[in-house]
């Protein structure tokens, strides 16, 4: 139901230039205690597209990602400055619970809850009260698992613990869990870092399907992955946003020499 509704408004087939931004960050500075991790980052995330964040380890990709759904609020020593908007609304004007319901997150390491597969996916809808009875919960769980491409594998073992799945399945379970809340944006922090090429390929396929409905920001260490799945790429270096543009342009024709060095593997 929601799928048809959103896909009719989907910008997925439009070019990045003519797509409005879902999330826009302006002048974002992040500090961990006295140490500054992000410097004046400006970034727009186009709706129904995949935006990839690349950059060497420790450059602040995760930090930026976690700013968007205010996960950094949880970190005691972390301070975020700047203006981040979701659909033109300041995310700090939103209630944090509402924000995280609208901006879902998939973590670098699969982190299924110590509950059954079913309960893992049902967790979000339950805490937000999205379903009023068991049937509705089931419906959400099944469609979410289906969208995450996991349903076929787990249909008969929904009452087994989520942790009994393989790493790749767990990651897709976490994606299904995020989708079940029906967010507008999905943040993915290196979702394939622990996966084999086959599982990676499946998740990449999945990301491409998901962007019809959602807006996706993905952190990745793999240039190929960024090139394959994203339409827009941002390169961060030492906490600064060095360059952002259409993925093709970034990979074929980087303007900054640091970007060039990084994508050609000369440093990182």
């Amino acid at each position, binding site marked *: 139901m929601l799928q048809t509704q959103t896909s009719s408004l989907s910008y997925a087939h439009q070019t990045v230039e003519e797509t409005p931004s879902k999330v826009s960050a302006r002048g974002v500075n992040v500090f961990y205690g006295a140490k500054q991790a992000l410097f004046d980052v400006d970034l727009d995330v186009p709706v129904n597209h995949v935006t990839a964040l690349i950059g060497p380890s420790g450059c602040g990709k995760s930090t930026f990602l976690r700013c968007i*759904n205010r*996960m950094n609020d949880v970190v005691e020593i972390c301070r975020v400055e700047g203006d981040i908007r979701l659909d033109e609304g300041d995310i700090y004007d939103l209630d944090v619970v509402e924000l995280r319901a609208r901006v879902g997150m998939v*973590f670098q390491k699969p*982190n299924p809850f110590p509950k059954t597969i079913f309960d893992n996916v049902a967790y979000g809808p339950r805490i937000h009260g999205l379903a009023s009875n068991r049937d509705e919960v089931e419906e959400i769980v099944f469609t979410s698992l289906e969208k995450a491409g996991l349903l076929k594998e787990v249909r008969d073992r929904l009452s087994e613990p989520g942790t009994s799945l393989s790493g790749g399945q767990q990651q897709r379970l976490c994606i299904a869990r995020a989708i079940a809340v029906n967010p507008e944006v999905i943040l993915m922090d290196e979702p394939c870092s622990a996966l084999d090429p086959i599982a990676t390929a499946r998740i990449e396929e999945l990301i491409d399907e998901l962007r019809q409905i959602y807006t996706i920001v993905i952190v990745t260490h793999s240039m190929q992955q960024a090139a394959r799945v994203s339409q827009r790429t941002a390169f961060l270096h030492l906490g600064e946003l060095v360059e952002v543009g259409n993925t093709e342009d970034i990979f074929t024709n980087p303007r900054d020499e640091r970007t060039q060095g990084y994508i050609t593997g000369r440093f990182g």
Partner: protein
Amino acid sequence: MTDSTPTIPSRSDTTQTVRNGLRRRYAAERRFKIYGVAAIGVALLMLAIMFGTIIGNGWSAFRQTYVQMDVLVDAAEIDPDGNRDPKVLSRGDYEGLIKAALREMFPDVKKRKEKRELYDLVSSGAAFDLRDEVMADPSLVGQTVSVTVHASDDVDMYMKGYISAEVAEDERRVSDKQIARIESLREQGRISTGFNLRFFTGGDSREPELAGIAGAALGSLWTMLAVLVMAFPMGVMAAIYLEEFAPKNRWTDIIEVNINNLAAVPSIVFGLLGLAVFLNFFGMPRSAPLVGGLVLALMTLPTIIIAGRAALTAVPPSIREGALGLGASRMQMVAGNVLPLAMPGMLTGAIIGMARALGETAPLLMIGMVAFIVDLPKGPLDAATVLPVQIFLWADSPERAFVERTSAATIVLLVFLILMNLGAVLLRKKFERRW
């Protein structure tokens, strides 16, 4: 990276070095294993010795010597008016009846001293047993009833072989004449040993043969219930608040330091606190398990809080982030994701605290739970004592028969502990599903 290459030793050197060290490394490992096994062995040996002595000393207290006698329930003595009025019946001289029956059995006894020795063969509780029997069935008045009464503790000790006839007469508690009478009773088949029910159903008594552990066991039970009801929810909530909700600032630091210090405060200090606050200020009843429970709950609280916080910190942050990332509120995250994982650890902490509280004596002395209490406590407000205090009281008594009761009470205390731990293990199993 590249500039460190020259310092890497050649392959064959490395292999040789590793090989040379192998024997030493395995020897160290074997030594460590031996130490470990030895340590466990010593611990088990000590445990076996402890259990061996306690059970060896205590198990005979579970049996008791009884004397069967035929008592004429003389109507003239206990019911002179003949109307079976319970009030009159209850005031009758049953002791006199018992004594008369004893004299009947041994008509040769004449002298006062001999009579006293004769009367000492049966417990002073015999008169009460007889009275209860007559009160329950007044038609017995006027008849000769066969009753089985408790033998006195000295007879019991003699029968159990703790008093030897070979020792000089003035060095034992049973005289030669008494021994002769016991033997003659034994020949008549009037002496029997049986299960000591009274030990498990009775309260404390000055007479060892009448003393039971039930009063103290019930006291311990009420006290532990009070501790559980107060300390566990409070400790868990305090741990959750401090770990999950409280801001990390100077105040919470001070609170944390104080909780850690409280855990190390000698228990008697909590007893003094209970005396000053609960008894003197709030005027709560002395010797009440509720007050004992309050005092022990205060003592246990820091342990539960510390263990609870440790259990909470042990929950992987990825679980918290997963829940928060889906938009769970803090409370939903704690209740739905963190607490189920932390529960086994919290239960362990609670059980450690409770086990310590169960064995605690000193603070309870301060609030009067050391009193000599015969009646069984029917609720947390009745005067009571607890198992360790009872053990202490009996260990302090001079009678030989209390020695075995002391050990028997220790067995009961240990059984209590084991049951509590078993409960905890089962609870943990329930929560600790492997994921």
